[in-house]
């Protein structure tokens, strides 16, 4: 019994669990996002097929030692151009429909094409459904627009299968195909693609923090254009303990290559209270325009608090 007590007393000061670190980052509102699937990058957009890497750096004598801490991507929260921007779930009205066709499908279903002049006999529920569908389209334009929400996501090199030429093929149907068979085929192909690569991101307007596929780590600082309320902040739990780091960098890399990448943001950690580090990251090419504030909680496995 005495031995057991001694072991308990000796070990009580340690919490032996996750030994990595927690990284929390606020990317400034001007941060670019990746272009929509299959689209040429526009103003303030990265190409579609890139990812970003957060790296930690140690200065050792006259050299820099780097380690990749986290890989991520930046997207608009909804990408109407994506072939798999669809409705999924047991409560959706048209499973597998491309969301850009939702209003038209509701119009066909309810017979209401003009909210101000619904057909005689239209029920109150049908009127509500038609109006809600119209509002959803308006919200999509705002969420996916240039002032829309930018999301920090998991990174993937996967791409969707090519679209069929029309609605009669056996592959991924074009978005305009909204018949039941096309919707079912689209749903199956998209879900298969997501299952094959759980990191492939596909957002939805239904729940902004719960994507159809992939992981949402958080948001670039900005406004929800619908409410409009401030949003922002992303975080990762990473395996690297992130102790004694001299510098952090975020670089942009083309997918599927060994390209060393382009330096996007860089900053030096400043020791804060209780062992928490703060990093102000600046863009060498866009100083003052694109910035980030990052907080690092290093080595969560080390807990010297005694009870």
């Amino acid at each position, binding site marked *: 019994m005495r031995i057991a007590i001694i072991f308990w007393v000796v070990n009580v000061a340690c919490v032996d669990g996750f030994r990595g670190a927690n990284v929390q980052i606020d990317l400034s509102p001007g941060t670019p996002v990746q272009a929509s699937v299959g689209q040429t990058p526009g103003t303030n957009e990265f190409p579609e097929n890139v990812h970003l890497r957060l790296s930690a750096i140690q200065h050792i004598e006259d050299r820099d030692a*780097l380690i990749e801490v986290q890989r991520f991507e930046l997207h608009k929260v909804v990408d109407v151009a994506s072939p798999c921007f669809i409705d999924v779930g047991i409560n959706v009205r048209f499973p597998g429909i491309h969301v850009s066709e939702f209003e038209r499908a509701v119009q066909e279903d309810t017979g209401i094409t003009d909210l101000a002049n619904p057909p005689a006999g239209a029920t109150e529920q049908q009127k509500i459904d038609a109006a809600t569908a119209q509002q959803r389209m308006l919200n999509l334009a705002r969420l996916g627009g240039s002032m829309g929400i930018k999301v920090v996501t998991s990174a993937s090199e996967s791409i969707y299968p090519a679209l069929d030429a029309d609605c009669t093929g056996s592959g991924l149907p074009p978005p305009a195909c909204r018949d039941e068979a096309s919707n079912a085929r689209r749903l199956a192909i998209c879900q298969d693609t997501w299952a094959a690569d759980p990191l492939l991101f596909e957002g939805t307007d239904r729940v902004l923090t719960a994507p159809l596929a992939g992981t949402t780590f958080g948001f670039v600082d900005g406004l929800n254009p619908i409410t409009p309320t401030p949003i922002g902040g992303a975080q990762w739990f990473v395996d690297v303990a992130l102790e004694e780091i001299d510098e952090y960098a975020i670089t942009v890399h083309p997918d599927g290559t060994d390209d060393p990448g382009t330096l996007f943001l860089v900053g030096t950690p400043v020791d804060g209270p209780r062992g928490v580090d703060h990093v102000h990251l600046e863009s060498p090419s866009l100083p003052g325009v694109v910035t980030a504030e990052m907080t690092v909680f290093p080595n969560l496995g080390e807990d010297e608090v005694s009870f």
Partner: protein
Amino acid sequence: MRALLALLVVAPGCKAVECGPGTFESDGLCIPADDIVDPATCGPFTELVAGQCVPLFPPTTCDDESTTPELDPSTGVTTCIGTGTGFACEQPVQGKQTICGQLHDLQTGLPFTDGNAACAPCTTSTATGVCSLGLRAIDAIKFAMNPQDPGAVLATGALYLDDCGRFKIPDITLPTNPFVGIGIDDAAPGMAGPAGTTNAIGMATPAVANLALKDFEAFIAPTATTDVWDTGGPKVSDGIFVAIFRAARLGTVGQAGVTILRAGTPIPGDDFYFAGAPRTTIDGNASSTSANGTALVTGAQLDGYLGAGGLPTECSYEGHAGVSIPNVLFIQIFRPNGPTCDL
């Protein structure tokens, strides 16, 4: 008991891994770096930053005496603008926003300039013309809720206005609300409101720190313009929200056939449209914009507005807030948007 104390002394913390230089602790183990970069790999006039060789000097250095640097945030390219006749929009100081642009006559859409303008800065206030105007930055939300709120006025650097109608409002202290407004009226206190060169004008844009917003379209509208609207249209005394729908993401061409929506719903009775391209005669029967792309709205209570119609299906108008404030024209530009919109 002595043995127990000894054990406590030798086990004060929990850190079990000490990694050497160039290695990192990951999941309790020391792992090698992904990459080790030697600064000797960097060429002349470059230095090692975060493992990459970057230029030692800024890519562009402008002559302080004859040029001013202007950064394009979308490309990262800095252009040196000549200070003789050029008009640079310099980066604001850290955490602030700068807005630069050109004044236009709302009725004609043409730049508002003085006759024989030499683009000389307004040094003294005049009775008429560009230099009779005063500009200020405002918290758009506070101003919309109470135009008399002194807390709605935002601190700025020294304003610039020249007789070509070009202006800069530098280093705006950003509001806690998400929009910065620009207020335009006659500078002389006795000429505030409808009197003088212009009615009181309000415009708004998203508040973005460290942004130099260029080419902002601002407007003036004298009573000679708005009095004509009294026939069949809204009155400035009630407040007018002026929504201008453009045909493309860039440029000043108006879009015909657009109906303004409040919270997604048409507002017959509160919206008014013009009979032709000039912003003069109101067409009481029109339900969408003429070639000038303009809708006049009354009864706006800081609502969200959109435009419907006039655009191809892959394009739609972004939403903007609008408000009707007595004796103020609140003007907002709407542009088409959409992932596959090529306008």
